[in-house]
């Protein structure tokens, strides 16, 4: 199977997973007694946030591997994951806003809680990460500088989180991993698990596609350089 065909299959599976998740969210999961239908955002909102964190963890892993071994592949993985992570962070944000409009009613003292602030910082850090890639001299320098930004930025996130939490926070507390078992009815938990797996699969697919694009782009550049070298070496050219 060619690599492209494999990506098509992966994409189809991920799409199917998302459809199943949609069915679970809207048809299977029960209505929340207090929040009503708005609560159904939770499944995709939390899953997107988890997928975003997973992507950024990949950026860190790729960055560490690059600084350690200097392999181009780990940098390419970090590059691909950063873009996808940014998309999922944006997604989690927009869904959080839609949920927060009726529930928190845009009270600024509520909207700047620990999790929102640290996620906002995460978003800005990785937007900066992509900017560094754009403005640094392409090649090894861009990879090295970007890896540093990716790692230091990720280390900052828990610190932002805790510094706001100690200050004040209103985000819904731990639900899934609450002490003493999940504080969710089993149907909701199942719907959430299915959605999370589907979203993680989707994120993985996007990273794979993005990785493929970056690999093609790198190959193109290599060919251009090789062609120029050949031209310079051929007799009759100056």
């Amino acid at each position: 199977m060619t690599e492209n065909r494999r990506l098509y299959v992966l994409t189809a599976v991920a799409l199917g997973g998302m459809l199943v998740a949609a069915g679970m969210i809207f048809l299977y999961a029960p209505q929340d007694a207090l929040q009503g239908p708005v609560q159904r955002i939770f499944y995709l909102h939390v899953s997107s946030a988890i997928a975003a964190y997973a992507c950024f963890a990949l950026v860190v892993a790729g960055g560490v591997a690059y600084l350690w071994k200097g392999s181009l592949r780990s940098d390419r993985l970090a590059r691909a994951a950063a873009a996808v992570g940014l998309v999922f962070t944006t997604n989690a944000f927009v869904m959080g806003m839609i949920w927060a409009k009726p529930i928190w009613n845009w009270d600024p003292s509520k909207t700047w809680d620990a999790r929102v602030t640290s996620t906002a910082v995460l978003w800005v850090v990785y937007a900066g990460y992509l900017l560094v890639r754009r403005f640094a001299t392409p090649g090894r320098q861009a990879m090295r500088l970007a890896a540093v930004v990716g790692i230091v930025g990720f280390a900052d996130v828990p610190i932002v989180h805790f510094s706001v939490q100690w200050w004040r926070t209103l985000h819904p507390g731990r639900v899934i991993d609450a002490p003493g078992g999940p504080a969710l009815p089993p149907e909701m938990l199942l719907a959430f698990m299915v959605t999370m797996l589907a979203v993680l699969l989707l994120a993985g697919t996007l990273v794979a596609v993005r990785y493929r694009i970056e690999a093609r782009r790198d190959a193109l550049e290599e060919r251009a350089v090789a062609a120029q070298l050949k031209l310079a070496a051929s007799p009759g050219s100056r």
Partner: protein
Amino acid sequence: MALAVARKDLRGELRGRELLPALAQFVVLALIIANFAFDLDLVSGPRLSPGILWLVLVFAGLVAFGRAFATEKESGSLEAMLLTPAGPASIFAGKALASAALLVACEAVLLPSMAVFLGSPISVAVVATVLLATGGMATLGCLFAALAAQTRARELLLPVLALPIWVPFVVVGGRAVQAAMTGQSLAALPLSGQPLVILADFDILFLVVASLAARFVLDD
């Protein structure tokens, strides 16, 4: 080694007197703008002054840290410095030390001017908070300044990279200054209790992170 680098930078600044007068002017001008922009009076002045303090400090810091590596880059002397036995980590530490000293000098203008223009109460707690935050901001700011100086758009990248990473200092420091300026004792703050201890923890943590990262940023 780091001290030698810091001494070199500060001596250059003392002889040239370029950055410090500009920063002092910037601070005073920022306060004047804040005064008119917020339409300050006796009630709103003390209430808004912690926020104004942090805004001015953060932006003055961006200017100070940005120059630390930009001047070396412009004269092409960073490569020469890397050839000395100093090593990336101590060059970086020296730069951070020198620019922290510059920012402290800047604060020596900022805090008294705030007391004069805005009537902000300046106490020992305020000074201690600001100094502790300066240390951590300087370490992180210099790390990203060194990074940004190697790219095409350093003036653009430094704020984008440094501001989000400084958020913890502004969160904790902002709360501490607010409490200190309204006459609360810092020990009465929820949990944190000791914002100064937390700020010192951040300083140490980021000093370790930044000195580990310095090798990869400066090493070319």
